[in-house]
C-alpha cells in the first residue's frame, strides 16, 4: 500500500504575514518534498493604476506596517527617476538615515521579537512560552535591549518623518521637511546607548551559536547565488549603488549591474501553489538561478562595511566559512552586524553639517515616462518600477520584493530542514518549530512580498496520498 503523506504547517508563526508549509512524505516516512505557500494576496501593482505618480510613495508604503519606509524610499526613487531630477544632497542623506533607522528597527524586530525565543529558550521549548515574554523570564536584559533598540529606530523615523508608521515625509524629489537641529541632537544623543546594545547583542549571539551546530548545518545550508547592493568601492550600500551577484565560492558572477535594468537579468516565475512569485537570475534559468538577498547576501557580496566596529565584526563573520557563508542560520548574525553598521553610519551622517540644510526638495514635472527605484530593504533588494502616461498617471507598475527573491531558497531550506529533522509519522513541536525557524531566518515579509491581506498561527497536517489526514497538530 502506498503510504505517501503530506504535512501542512498552517499558519507559520512569528513571521510577518500569512503562510503555510506542506511537507510531502514517502512511504517510509521520509520527507521527499516541501513547499512554502504564501496564502495572501494584495494586488498593489494593479490598484495603483490610474493614480497620480506623486501619490505613489505613500500609497505603496501602505503595503506594509513593518517596513513602510523601505517602500517609501524605493517608490520615491522611482518617482525621482520619473522627474529625472537629482535630489538635493541633504535630502539624499536624510533619506539614507531614514532607511537605516528602518533597517535597525526591523532587524531588531526580527532578531529579538521573532527569533530570540528560539535562540534563548531553544528550538524544543514549549510553544506557549516561545515568545518575547518567555525571553523576558529567562533573560530580561536581552528582551529589554530588543525593545529599546526597536524603539531607537522607530523614534528616528518619527523624528524625521513625523510618525512611526506610514510617514508621508519622503516625496518625489526629496523629502518634505528639513531636519531641525533639536531633532538632530536628540537622535545623536540616543546613539551611544543603541551602539552599546548592538555590541552587547552580537557578543551574546556569538556565544549562543555554539549550541545550534545541527541547525547551522541544516538550515538552508546549500550553495546559491547572493545578490546585494554595493557602493563603488565595494562596501555595503543600503540606499543607492550597483548590484553585485556572488556565488557559493565567493566568486563574483556579476558586478556593477544597474538596478534600473533589473529586468535584463532578473526574472519572476509564478507557481500555482503560492501567491508569492519566485525571482531568479535569468542567465542561469529557472530554478537554477536561485539567489538569496538580505543581510547574509549583502555581507557575502560586500567587501567591507565602512565603519570601524562593523568591519571588525564583518571580518570575524567572514571567517565562519572559507568562501561564501551558506547557512541561512547566519542571517541572524549578519542582521546584527548590519544593525551595528547602520547605527555607526547614521552617526556619521548626522554629524555632517549639511544634514541641517533647508534645501531638501527638487521640484519638477515628470520628464520621463518610466522610472525604476531600487534600495536595500531590511530583507533584501527592493525594486519599484512605474510607467506613467502624458498626464503623470500611473499606467503600469511592477514591484520585486526581497521575500520573493528569497522564495526559491526558502523552499529549498524548508525541504532541507524537514529532511533533517522530520522523522516518521509522529509530529513533535520542536520539529515543527525548526521548520518555521528556518523561515524566520529569512525574516520574510509576506504582506510586502505578495503586495497582499491577515492572522497568523500554525497548523501541521500529515496527509496520505488518498487525502486522508493521518496526523494534525494545530497552534491557536
Amino acid at each position, binding site marked *: 500500500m502506498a503510504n505517501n503523506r503530506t504535512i501542512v504547517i498552517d499558519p507559520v508563526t512569528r513571521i510577518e504575514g500569512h503562510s503555510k508549509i506542506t511537507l510531502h512524505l514517502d512511504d517510509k516516512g521520509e520527507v521527499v518534498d516541501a513547499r512554502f505557500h504564501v496564502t495572501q494576496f494584495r494586488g498593489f501593482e494593479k490598484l495603483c493604476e*490610474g*493614480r*497620480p505618480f*506623486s*501619490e505613489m*510613495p*505613500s*500609497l505603496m508604503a*501602505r503595503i506594509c506596517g513593518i517596513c513602510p519606509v523601505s517602500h517609501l524610499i524605493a517608490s520615491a526613487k522611482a518617482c525621482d527617476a520619473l522627474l529625472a531630477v537629482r535630489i538635493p544632497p541633504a535630502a539624499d542623506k536624510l533619506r539614507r538615515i531614514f532607511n537605516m533607522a528602518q533597517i535597525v528597527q526591523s532587524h531588531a524586530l526580527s532578531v529579538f521579537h521573532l527569533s530570540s525565543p528560539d535562540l534563548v529558550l531553544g528550538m524544543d521549548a514549549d510553544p506557549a512560552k516561545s515568545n518575547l515574554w518567555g525571553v523576558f523570564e529567562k533573560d530580561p536584559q536581552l528582551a529589554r535591549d530588543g525593545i529599546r533598540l526597536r524603539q531607537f529606530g522607530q523614534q528616528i523615523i518619527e523624528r524625521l518623518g513625523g510618525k512611526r508608521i*506610514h510617514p*508621508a515625509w519622503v*516625496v*518625489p524629489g526629496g523629502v*518634505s521637511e528639513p531636519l531641525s537641529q533639536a531633532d538632530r541632537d536628540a537622535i545623536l544623543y540616543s546613539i551611544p546607548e543603541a551602539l552599546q546594545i548592538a555590541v552587547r547583542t552580537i557578543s551574546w549571539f556569538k556565544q549562543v551559536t555554539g549550541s545550534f551546530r545541527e541547525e547551522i548545518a541544516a538550515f538552508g545550508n546549500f550553495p546559491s547565488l547572493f545578490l546585494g547592493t554595493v557602493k563603488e568601492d565595494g562596501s555595503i550600500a543600503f540606499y543607492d549603488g550597483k548590484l553585485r551577484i556572488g556565488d557559493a565560492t565567493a566568486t563574483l558572477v556579476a558586478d556593477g549591474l544597474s538596478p534600473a535594468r533589473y529586468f535584463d537579468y532578473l526574472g519572476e516565475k509564478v507557481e500555482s501553489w503560492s501567491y508569492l512569485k519566485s525571482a531568479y537570475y535569468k542567465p542561469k534559468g529557472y530554478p537554477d538561478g536561485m539567489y538569496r538577498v538580505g543581510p547574509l547576501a549583502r555581507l557575502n557580496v560586500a567587501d567591507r562595511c565602512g565603519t570601524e566596529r562593523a568591519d571588525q565584526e564583518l571580518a570575524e563573520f567572514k571567517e565562519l566559512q572559507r568562501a561564501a557563508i551558506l547557512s541561512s542560520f547566519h542571517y541572524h548574525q549578519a542582521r546584527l552586524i548590519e544593525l551595528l553598521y547602520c547605527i555607526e553610519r547614521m552617526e556619521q551622517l548626522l554629524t555632517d553639517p549639511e544634514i541641517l540644510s533647508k534645501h531638501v526638495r527638487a*521640484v519638477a*514635472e515628470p520628464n520621463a515616462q518610466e522610472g525604476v527605484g531600487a534600495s536595500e530593504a531590511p530583507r533584501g533588494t527592493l525594486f519599484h518600477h512605474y510607467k506613467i502616461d502624458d*498626464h*503623470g*498617471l500611473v499606467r503600469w507598475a511592477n514591484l520585486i520584493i526581497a521575500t520573493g527573491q528569497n522564495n526559491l531558497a526558502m523552499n529549498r531550506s524548508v525541504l532541507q530542514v524537514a529532511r533533517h529533522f522530520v522523522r516518521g509519522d509522529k509530529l513533535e513541536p520542536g520539529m515543527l518549530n525548526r521548520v518555521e525557524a528556518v523561515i524566520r531566518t529569512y525574516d520574510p515579509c509576506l504582506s510586502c512580498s505578495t503586495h497582499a491581506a491577515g492572522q497568523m498561527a500554525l497548523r501541521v497536517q500529515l496527509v496520505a496520498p488518498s487525502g486522508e489526514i493521518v496526523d494534525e497538530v494545530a497552534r491557536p
Partner: protein
Amino acid sequence: MTASANVKTFQINGRDYSARAEETILEVARQNGIFIPRLCELEGLSTVGACRLCLVEVKGSNRLLASCVTRVEEGMEVTTNSERLERYRRGIVELLFTERNHVCSVCVSNGHCELQFLSQKLDITHIHYPYRFPKAEVDASHGRFVIDHNRCILCNRCVRVCDEIEGAHTWDVMGRGIDARVITDLNQPWGTSDTCTSCGKCVHVCPTGALFEKGRSVAEMEKRRNFLPYLQLMRGDQNG
C-alpha cells in the same frame, strides 16, 4: 422703513440673538461661534442647500430646515443640535463615504479635508451602509490641476466659484442622481477646456482632495480660501 425694523430677534439653542432680516441662520450661528456642520456652503459663494448637513430644527415646523438657505424670522426658536439632527448628519456623511472611493490615508488632503474633519467631529468610526466602489476616473490633463472624481462629493463649490467669482463657468454638473459628475466645458478633458483660466479657485474651495494641485504628495494639499470674501466684495463694487 427704518433700519431697526429690519432687525429680527429670535433664539438659537435657547439664547436670544438679533440679526438683519436677510441673514441666514447659518450666518448668525457662525458669527456667534455656534458650530453647524456644512460641506456645500462657503462664505463668499451663493448658497444652494445641497449637502443637507446644516439642517436645524425650528419650533413649529415638522420639517428640518437647511440653515444655509433659511433666513432668520422674528420669534424663531432654532435648535442646532439634537439626537435626531446628529443621526441625520451622521447618516449623510456616511453615505458620502459610500458613494465614491474615499481613502483618507493616501489622499493629498489627509489632515486638511472638510469631509474628514466632519466625520471626526461627528464621531463616525464605522460606515453602516454598503460601499458602492464606483469606477471613477482621474483627469490629470490640465497642466497644473487634477480632478479625482473618487473624492468628489458634488458640493458644487467649484461650479459656483468658477461662475460667480471667476466668471468663467468652466465647471458644471452632468447626469442625475448617483450618476452625477462635475464636468469641465462640454464634458471634455480639463486640459482641453477653452474657458478655464487656470485661476485655481475651484481647487481651493473644494472641501476634499477631489481637486488638487498637480505634484502634491499625500497630505500636502492645503486649501487657501481667504481670498473669497475679498474677491466677492471687489466684484460687488464693480457690479454695483
